[in-house]
């Protein structure tokens, strides 16, 4: 009797348990992939700003506001005076613009919610990528089509691709396949000190 039970445990129960554990792990792993990598992260912003309106419809170049993207590590979130460059005149009647003007006049920092982030120990550099001809959209998605949501107008831009080291290396290794339009593109560096210092 005892012998039979042990036999049953090893031959039937154990494989079933292992199968359940492995499949549930695998399913959870794939299902939560986006969640873990922050894909779809779309925080509420302090001002209902629409990239679709500015970059999409009006076709304002990304670098008109994100000024240092060609020069520096940081693309830079535009300072309030950049917004006011137009909005001191344009659309002054809109409540969201009045909110912006208030920030400007009171000299208060405008607390945008951060959407994309690489860890502090990774030194990602915008300028080297942009100066090689890589489009902003390659990593940030079709930002020019991201509009404020109907349900919550303070939500607009979301993260669309993974910002993990795996994602960086994937592109660095297969740069030619990823960007067929850029024949002069060299393979991205794969050594540690390219990003970590």
């Amino acid at each position, binding site marked *: 009797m005892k012998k039979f039970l042990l036999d049953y445990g090893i031959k039937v129960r154990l494989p079933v348990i292992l199968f359940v554990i492995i499949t549930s792990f695998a399913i959870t792993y794939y299902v939560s992939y986006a969640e873990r990598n922050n894909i779809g992260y779309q925080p509420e912003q302090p001002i209902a700003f629409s990239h679709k309106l500015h970059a999409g419809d009006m076709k304002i170049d990304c670098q008109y506001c994100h000024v240092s993207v060609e020069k520096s590590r940081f693309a830079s979130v535009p300072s309030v005076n950049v917004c006011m460059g137009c909005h001191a005149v344009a659309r002054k009647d809109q409540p969201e613009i009045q909110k912006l003007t208030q920030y400007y006049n009171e000299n208060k920092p405008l607390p*945008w919610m951060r959407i994309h982030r690489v860890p502090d120990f990774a030194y990602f550099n915008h*300028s080297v990528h942009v100066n*090689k001809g890589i489009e902003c959209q390659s990593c940030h998605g079709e930002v020019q089509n991201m509009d404020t949501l109907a349900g919550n107008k303070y939500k607009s831009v979301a993260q669309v691709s993974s910002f993990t080291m795996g994602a960086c290396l994937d592109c660095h290794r297969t740069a030619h396949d990823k960007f067929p339009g850029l024949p002069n593109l060299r393979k991205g560096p794969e050594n540690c000190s390219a990003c970590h210092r």
Partner: protein
Amino acid sequence: MDKGADKEKNLKSDGQTYWRSFSELYNNKAFRDALNSEFSSEELNGLRKNSKSSLSRRRFLALLGASAAFAAAGCSNYRGKGQIVPYNKKPEEVTLGIPNYYASTCTGCSSSCGILVKTREGRPVKVDGNPDHPVNKGKICAKGQASIVNLYNPERLKEPMVNEGGRFIQSDWNNVNSKIKEALSSANSSGKQVALISHSVTSPTFKKIIEDFQKAYPVAKLYTYEVFNESARRSAWEKTYGRKSLPVLKLDEARVILSLESDFLGTDPNHIENTRLFTSGRDVMSGKEFNRLYVVEGAATLTGFNADYRIRLRTDAIEEFVLCLISELVVKRKISPFAGDSQVLSMLSGYKLDEFAAKHKLDQKVLNYLLEDLLKNQGSGAVIAGDMLPESTHIAVNFLNEVLGNSKLYSRESESTDVHPLSTSDEIETLISSLNSGNVDVVIHLDSNPVYHFSPDYSYRELLKKVKVVITLTEMINESAELSNFIIPLNDPLESWGDYKTRSGFYSLQQPVIAPLYNTRQKETVLLEWTGRNYSENLYHDYLKENWEKSVYPMLGTTASFDKFWFASLHDGVAFIQEKPEASGLSFSKDAFLKSVPMKASDGYVLLLQNNNTVGDGRFASNGWLQELPHPISKVTWDNYAAVSPQAASELSVNSDDLVEISVNGRKQVFPVFVQPGLADKVIEVSLGYGRTAAGVVGTGVGVDAGVLVSAKPAISDRLYNNISVSKVSGKYELASTQEHYPIDSDPLLKDIHKRRGIIREGTWLQYKEDPKFLEKERHKMDLSPINKPPVYAREDYKGYKWGMAIDMNKCTGCGECIMACSIENNIPVVGKDQVIANREMMWLRIDRYYSGTPEAPKASFQPMLCQQCDYAPCENVCPVAATTHSEDGLNGMTYNRCVGTRYCSNNCPYKVRRFNYFDFRDHFKDSYQYSESFDLMANPEVTIRARGVMEKCTFCVQRIMKEREDAIRENREVIGSNVTTACQDACPSDAIVFGNVNDQDSQVAKYREHELGYTVLEEIKVAPNVTYIARLRNIFEKE
């Protein structure tokens, strides 16, 4: 440490004083008791039953689980990444991630060197030398580099303070200013003196403000002092040449240099320029014959250990030596017109060089070399005497230079100028006597600390009690501030405006690179307010500009507008003007020489009070980075000590870490002993500037105050005493050295190991001239048995650019400026004395000092040692997590976030250049001192702050390499190796460090790599390091 010694040290430097007077809160008894009991022995030895918590283990775990669950439930926004806050109105000049550079002037000492401050997003992160400045030419000493720490020091004064019944109460500017103005006018009306006490004044506009102040308050008098000054040299110059200003010495044109107790390459305030000029005569690439340096000294200085011939001689006999030398030249060899001068001959009659040499056991052969060299190089030699030597010695040295025609080397183009002369000792005496008679109503310490600096003979501390109002203007609490009625918080030099003039031909400008962090003002503004002007943020700026428009701008004779000139000068940091020394000729007068009374040598012990490269006269005591910078010779950090020769050590029966009591004219002080090879037999050297009693948590109680031995009326000079008494006292004191205390090993197996293993390879100039390839041939003498075996594993060829470094040991003096540059650039924390004792200092770059020869008269070799970025790096193949890997441009990368801290790599590193974070030192050192909010601003944002438990090391400044790569991509070009400079290279005053692309055959680094004197350290282990050392050539007559 022995308890007695501990007690003794605490008695001398009461570390609590600062806090006691600063804040009542921290001084209540319960708080102190709690502090003390936290780590009391009782607590550590066993648990007290009644002190146990009533919480059971089960209950604790239950609570822990529950709180974790609640915490998890509460954190619904686990994806949140925080905010990203842009500027509201971005300053035009700021681009995120791109540094700005501003030219300014360093005020760390009276040299007033030009600096270039790197700022990131408006905050200064690094101080380098200003390349346009004609004196320091792009280089700056360790103190200047570390001055950035002073700016962010969390203990800076933040508000004006008023002393009310022994306690300092925070006040506001209006209140303080009105009270002070009242005191000043009442002193003025009653005819009592207002004494302004300052360090040397090198700013013309500041001098003008003091004149304004004296107009408003005619009773005001200015006194200036400097602990390390060259007044003996200056007064000797005035007596022999009739002029006050010293000409600049053209050291680069000198073929032979005789230095007498002068540390012109080490602790001299102008050592940056001196090092550049001196080492320009030691360039193997130029192929020119080296200059030759003779050093006669009692101390063991950096200059001495860089000499070709070093003659040990007790300091008080140096003047006799000079006179014997003159006698030998003038009387015996009939050199110079003075040979026929009966007065000179009679003066020199008693001095015989051979008798002197026999008496002091000097090597006659070396003396002959010296004489021949001086004779052969008449007109292109230089004899330099140290600042601590008395006036009579300087007069004799001036005479010797005149005899040899060496006055040709005094520049006719440039001379040092004095904006305001230092007060003479007589003037200080007058101040003391008027203080004593109660004739002084107000004393104002203008960023000076006379309570600590003045000789105890003056009993200045007690005299201050007789003064109605004492005002101290300072950045941090100091000994003088503690005894003041008002403490005026000053701006840091990096927050201040100013102008400085130390040489003819140019002015140097200082501009703020950050707005004042706290409610502070600069001393010029404060004085202007006291003269009756209304405060505004631009008060001194406008005054300075106005003064320049009136006084400096007309000297230029330009058609450009003043505004153009002003902004151009601010941009450059210097303004050049048409100005020549007053008279172009020098007329020597022998009268002073005939009249001077020579210094008398003794047989007893000689005490030298030395300058240092770290805390200066104590001004930098609260700077942990400087306190931890190892002494260039002894490698001791965090302390001063009595350096004694091995001979004196055995005579006094002391060893390193023992204690000795030194008494001078009845005043005594106890010092820890460090046995210093190479010191003259009966010479003891002690560094000044230590033992501060009020220098914040970092500086208070570090070292022992040697200033208490300074005499107001010294027999020889204020820094040189003979016939002192020294005795051993019981007790021990542990010194923290970054190199072993007993460097000359008695073990025959280890003797001269650095030469046998080819770590240090040297030759002589003659040897090199005879056979340029001698180094290659000498390889067979070394233990290079494994040299012909192939490497363990193959590596790819480096096809593109490959980084490499070359260090020219002929130029490296071992000064250590590179260490400081590296520490500031790479966010290297201070670890504290206890951790240095445990060999846990974190500096990525160290300078190894090797001795060879006898302990009495050793030769020293210096070698900067940093990660060698080996092609076959042994650290890489032992890392279990691949945290250290190689890149295709030849770098041995270190990825901190991958490191798990096994320390295998360090174990396998033949050069021992990897540093392990045993603690989070920012947290561990002085109760999270380095985690103070203000220090966050200091960190270089391009370099990761390393966590505890990871390995770190030199990366060849990979952040600068990546910067060049980014620039190359932006400009659509290839990477240019010479565009990258490492931090150590930038700081090296002699340009001994060269960095670049070794695959570029035209680059300087490639040429050094191919040079016949180039070698790599531990060549036989075949790890193919990428740091090439150029073998040092001693310019001596013998062959080694």
